[in-house]
């Protein structure tokens, strides 16, 4: 993979303190050499080229950079990349399979859950963690789980509908495969 270092003018190569980390991204094992101050969001976007994870506020408020670390949503602008060592990271790129959208992505499409789309990856990752824990959430549960993610377009109404749509679809799929 591509390794990105901060370019410190006049500094000899090799003096940048770098740590080697091993982690998993969307099921693929990775090794990276990172400067300790590199943020997880930058490792994902620039190091791995997975630009679906967006940087919004850069101040731990907006949740656009939300990814899953070992299944739990985390604001990747507020975690050091070195802290990913030994952990599993899931980003929005891991949702869809080769030819098929994830029910959450389908739900956002069906229910018009996005306008500009900037907050959408963070919304979907937070929603994915919710549905893993609670497959049959109420509208209130969804609003609560997404309360750390800001959207300036939709007024949230359709985002909530999208997540409920996905929950229903996932439950349907679950019971069909269960019966089969």
């Amino acid at each position, binding site marked *: 993979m591509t390794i990105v270092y901060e370019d410190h003018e006049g500094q000899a190569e090799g003096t940048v303190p770098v740590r080697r980390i091993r982690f998993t991204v969307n099921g693929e094992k990775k090794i990276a050499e990172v400067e300790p*101050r590199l*943020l997880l969001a930058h490792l994902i976007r620039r190091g791995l080229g997975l630009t679906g994870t967006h940087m919004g506020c850069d101040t*731990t408020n907006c*949740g656009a950079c939300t990814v899953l670390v070992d299944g739990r949503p985390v604001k990747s602008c*507020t975690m050091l990349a070195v802290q990913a060592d030994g952990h599993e990271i899931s980003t929005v790129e891991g949702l869809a399979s080769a030819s098929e959208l994830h029910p959450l992505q389908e739900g956002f499409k069906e229910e018009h859950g996005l306008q500009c789309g900037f907050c959408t990856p963070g919304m979907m990752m937070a929603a994915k963690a919710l549905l893993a824990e609670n497959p049959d959430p109420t509208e209130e549960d969804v609003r609560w789980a997404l309360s750390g993610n800001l959207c300036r377009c939709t007024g949230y109404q359709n985002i909530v509908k999208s997540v409920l749509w996905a929950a229903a679809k996932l439950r349907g799929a679950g019971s069909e495969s269960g019966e089969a």
Partner: protein
Amino acid sequence: MYPSRFRYEAPRSLDEAIGLLHDGGDYAKVLAGGQSLVPLMKLRFASPQLVVDINHVPGLAYHRADPDGTLRIGALCRHADLERSSLLRATQPTMASAAPLIADPIVRNRGTLVGSLCHADPQGDWASVVLALGGSVVARGPRGTRTIPLAGFVTGPFENVLDPDEIAVEAVIPAAQGARSGGYLKLERRVGDFATVGVAVAIETSGGSVTRAGIALTGVGGSTIGATEAAQSLIGRPLTAESIETAAELAAQAARPRTDHRGSAEYKRHMVRTFVQRLLSRPGAAPDEAQERAA
């Protein structure tokens, strides 16, 4: 935004972490949840030369009750663990009602209670809760272990009494002697914002009378405020409309709010009074009938 450069260490034991801090001098910081430290480092309000990440130290992610009821919360216990805790729901009404109000759900997945106490933000919610419950912080360093009551732990905004080579390993909430009740109420403009006003109330009742009371205030002064006179006024008698009114008034007087973008000083003081009234008037705050019969 990037933090300035620092050396990063991820020790595998507490002793190793303490050794690193001891050698690291004045500007070493402990990283647990990082939900306050990392933003401060990005803004360059904090530029530690050494960051000691304790996330690989085993055995710190607990919260558990001793046989006598003393609650212990380890340095890596996340807010989300406390929010989901059946132990807290059963035994710690003030803590259980505060946990879902800390920051936002995503931040709660990483942030820790002990880290929040150490960070000593005057707007920190947990500090009020732990102060109202008469809790302490246990610190470990090269010279051993000491227990510091929260009232003496925070020395000012963003300052605590820890030595540079000490680590706060757990928070301790003393066991209740009577039936515990109370709660935490937080007025915030939106989820994740700091409290405009926060009030923690923790009382214990026995034989129909209040035997222990703690009231603490968030966001209405330069630091967490323990409304000790208000709490004292409740002790030794049953909760009545009159005693609740007196305590609410004393708590409002203890507040030192300032007018800012979150509201006027007068409004904040009024909300302190209202929140104390509401918390003390909740079902469970008044002596429970079943408890009365048992006594």
